């Protein structure tokens, strides 16, 4: 008979406030095999862990249960503590009586009963647990970074600098992301391109970085340390190996396509580079708008290119790579102005979004940095900025705060004021949030020294009247409604995850939260990892954040990858499937259900084996096995049955 110890955590009042922990200890002490049961205020604290270690030795425990918070938080903590006391880590189990009990119930009696049943269930599991050893798995020390914005660039550079190979995949033809579109950055007013382009060039030239722009990840299989990735290189219809980037083809192209990079405020040809500082600085032909592709006639670019780099017959390529870790840094979009019905739904020409205004401010933008409004090119004298356009609006748009708008709107108003001295900026806001180094000072300066008028209230409606754009708002601080006849309105539209991210996460099988942003393994303690091992996350794809935070997180994710690559091999959870060769009839149903090709048929013995390196421990084959030959370690059918019985309060 096993000697099991149960340790019940109060978690301050988090558990003890609802669950009678003393009673839980008393009740579970009566169970078979339980030789010790004790409650303690903070089990995860040093003294708490010391108690666990001491009792393992003293009571000669060969199995322990920690009744505390979710195993996602402290399973590894306690398994390490157990190991230190000489107990096999797989003899340590967590009974979740916080997230799945004390926090979700208020009736003390019922919560206590439930906690007892939860602990009993885990006692039953532990009674039959075997001692296991982790399975060593080799690592491919090459990283994949998806997304070539500042997050992806930073992560790729950091990993590459540590000596490991990196593939940086970007779906546009150039890396740079949104940061390349910005004019200046808050609160220092550094020129965005000036600080970004050296990094773009560095990433383009680094001998450990393989840049794959105009490419998208098609499929990912495998597991941490050993992923197989298929990447689609879209045909640019230009042979980049011979193209010199002279740009003559782009001048000749007769097509006019609204520039996505300039937010539709300028046009480029069907053959184009998105912006002059692009890395790599090679053009692509947009198949949708190319006159030749549409009508079969034109080919002006081909005639212009003296070295014959235009290749209309190019096709997409599929490239397969073996990868050890994946960083997802796919960035964001902003809520389209067209979705904001009461703000003109995109039909009022002088209502633009923040990124468009960045382009108007940018020295390399469509107006060379002069602020001119889209409708008639006049310099606007009264400019209204509307914050929370689609953010913090759970009823109609997005429930969350987009975080960067307070600061960039202040920056916009400031830069506008610097360009148009007699112009008047107004900012409508709900709250001004300046949590960041130097942010409060930046805002303070804008408010008190730059003549920017902050109006506390939401804008209800924006419409066009003649050449004016009428803004109806309120100022809750004076208690007066406000009307402004604006020349230009800039909406700080909500930051939203890219649509392509939703498709990508399906391929990667990583998690997103309710708003479509990538989920981290733990909101506080594991912020750069996905729950799934081998996947890391960086940048706004995880949620709205500014550049310094994005860069810090990208470096953090890179460090996690480097730390993973610093090991000789990985240890895989041994709680996987195994086969009782005596019972196996060789029906091979397990082979048909295994998603990892981990079940192999042994022709000689006529049985189905388990390839331990490939098995992920999902248990699908165990459930499928008709004769009970396949079992899962530490989750056998007999364990499950006694757990079920115990969960019902025993019989």
């Amino acid at each position, binding site marked *: 008979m096993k000697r099991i110890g149960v340790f019940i955590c109060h978690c301050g009042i988090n558990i003890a406030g609802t669950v009678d922990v003393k009673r839980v200890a008393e009740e579970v002490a009566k169970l078979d095999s339980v030789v010790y049961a004790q409650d303690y205020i903070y089990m995860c604290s040093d003294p708490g862990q010391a108690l666990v270690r001491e009792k393992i030795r003293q009571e000669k425990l060969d199995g322990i249960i920690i009744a505390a918070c979710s195993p996602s938080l402290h399973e590894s903590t306690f398994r390490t503590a157990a190991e230190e006391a000489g107990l096999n880590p797989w003899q340590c189990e967590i009974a979740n009586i916080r997230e799945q009990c004390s926090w*979700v119930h208020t009736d003390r009696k019922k919560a206590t009963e439930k906690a007892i049943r939860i602990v009993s269930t885990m006692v039953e599991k532990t009674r039959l647990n075997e001692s296991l050893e982790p399975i060593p798995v080799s690592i491919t020390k090459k990283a994949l970074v998806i997304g070539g914005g500042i997050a992806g660039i930073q992560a790729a550079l950091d990993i590459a600098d540590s000596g490991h190979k990196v593939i940086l995949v970007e779906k546009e033809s150039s890396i740079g992301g949104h940061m390349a579109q910005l004019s200046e950055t808050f609160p220092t007013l550094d020129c965005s391109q000036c600080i970004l382009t050296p990094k773009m060039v560095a990433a383009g030239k680094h001998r450990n970085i393989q840049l794959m722009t105009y490419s998208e990840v098609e499929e990912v299989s495998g597991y941490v340390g050993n992923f197989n990735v298929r990447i689609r290189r879209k045909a640019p219809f230009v042979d980049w190996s011979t193209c010199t980037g002279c740009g003559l083809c782009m001048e000749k192209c007769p097509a006019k396509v609204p520039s996505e990079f300039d937010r539709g405020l300028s046009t480029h040809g069907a053959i184009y580079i998105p912006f002059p500082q692009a890395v790599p600085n090679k053009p692509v032909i947009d198949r949708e708008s190319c006159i030749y592709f549409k009508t079969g006639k034109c080919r002006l670019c081909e005639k212009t290119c003296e070295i014959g780099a235009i290749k209309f017959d190019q096709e997409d390529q599929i490239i397969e790579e073996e990868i050890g870790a994946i960083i997802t840094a796919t960035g964001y979009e902003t809520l389209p102005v067209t979705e904001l019905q009461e703000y003109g739904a995109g039909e009022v020409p002088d209502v633009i979004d923040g990124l468009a205004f960045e382009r108007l401010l940018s020295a390399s933008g469509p107006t060379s940095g002069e602020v001119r409004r889209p409708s008639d090119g006049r310099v606007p004298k009264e400019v209204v900025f509307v914050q929370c356009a689609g953010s913090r609006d759970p009823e109609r748009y997005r429930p969350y705060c987009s975080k960067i708008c307070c600061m960039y709107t202040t920056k916009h108003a400031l830069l506008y004021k610097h360009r148009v001295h007699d112009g008047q900026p107004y900012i409508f806001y709900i709250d001004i949030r300046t949590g960041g180094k130097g942010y409060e000072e930046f805002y303070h300066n804008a408010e008190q020294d730059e003549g920017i008028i902050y109006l506390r209230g939401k804008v209800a409606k924006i419409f066009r009247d003649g050449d004016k754009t009428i803004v109806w708002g309120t100022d809750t601080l004076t208690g007066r409604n406000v009307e402004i006849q604006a020349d230009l309105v800039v909406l700080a539209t909500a930051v939203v995850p890219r649509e392509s991210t939703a498709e990508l996460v399906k391929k990667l099988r990583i*998690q997103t939260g309710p708003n479509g942003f990538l989920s981290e393994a733990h909101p506080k303690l594991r912020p750069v990892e996905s729950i799934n091992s081998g996947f890391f996350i960086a940048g706004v794809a995880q949620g709205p954040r500014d550049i310094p935070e994005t860069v810090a997180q990208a470096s953090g994710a890179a460090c996690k990858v480097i730390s993973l690559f610093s090991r000789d091999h990985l240890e895989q959870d041994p709680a996987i499937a195994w086969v009782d060769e005596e019972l196996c009839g060789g029906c091979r149903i397990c082979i048909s259900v295994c998603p990892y090709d981990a079940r192999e048929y042994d022709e000689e013995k006529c049985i189905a084996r388990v390839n331990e390196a490939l098995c992920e421990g999902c248990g699908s084959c165990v459930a*499928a096995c008709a004769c009970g030959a396949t079992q899962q370690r530490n989750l056998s059918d007999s364990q499950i049955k006694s757990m079920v019985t115990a969960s019902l309060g025993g*019989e």
Partner: protein
Amino acid sequence: MFEPRIVCFLCTWCTSAGADLAGTSRLQYRPNGVNIKFMCSSRVDPEHVLWAFREGADGVLIGGCHPGDCHYQDGNYRTQARVSLLYRLLDDFGIDRARLRLEWISAAEGTKFAAVMNEFTEELRSLGPIKLAAREMAK
């Protein structure tokens, strides 16, 4: 009032994480279920479900990832196929199909988990305690 007993087989990646989220969000729901966590809902053998009923469970909940979101590619499809067959078996045993529920609850759906637990508890209350001929006879 009749308090039904529920066994919940939850996959670790989605539904158990969703149950954790219900906890961190401090949502309140009925305490009638005890969760048993599997790596994947496809670990649930129909036999486990039948065993639960045999042992006196008034209801069984199986929770997995939404279709297409399975951490193990297609485990949840297998679960669904098995549950469909199991329903036919339940009919033969005279167990109301409503006592077995398969739900897709993602890691982000703490509210859904809480709602399902409440709803399922109410439904089982209206069905009353499970009665199995074999058990009745044994008594």
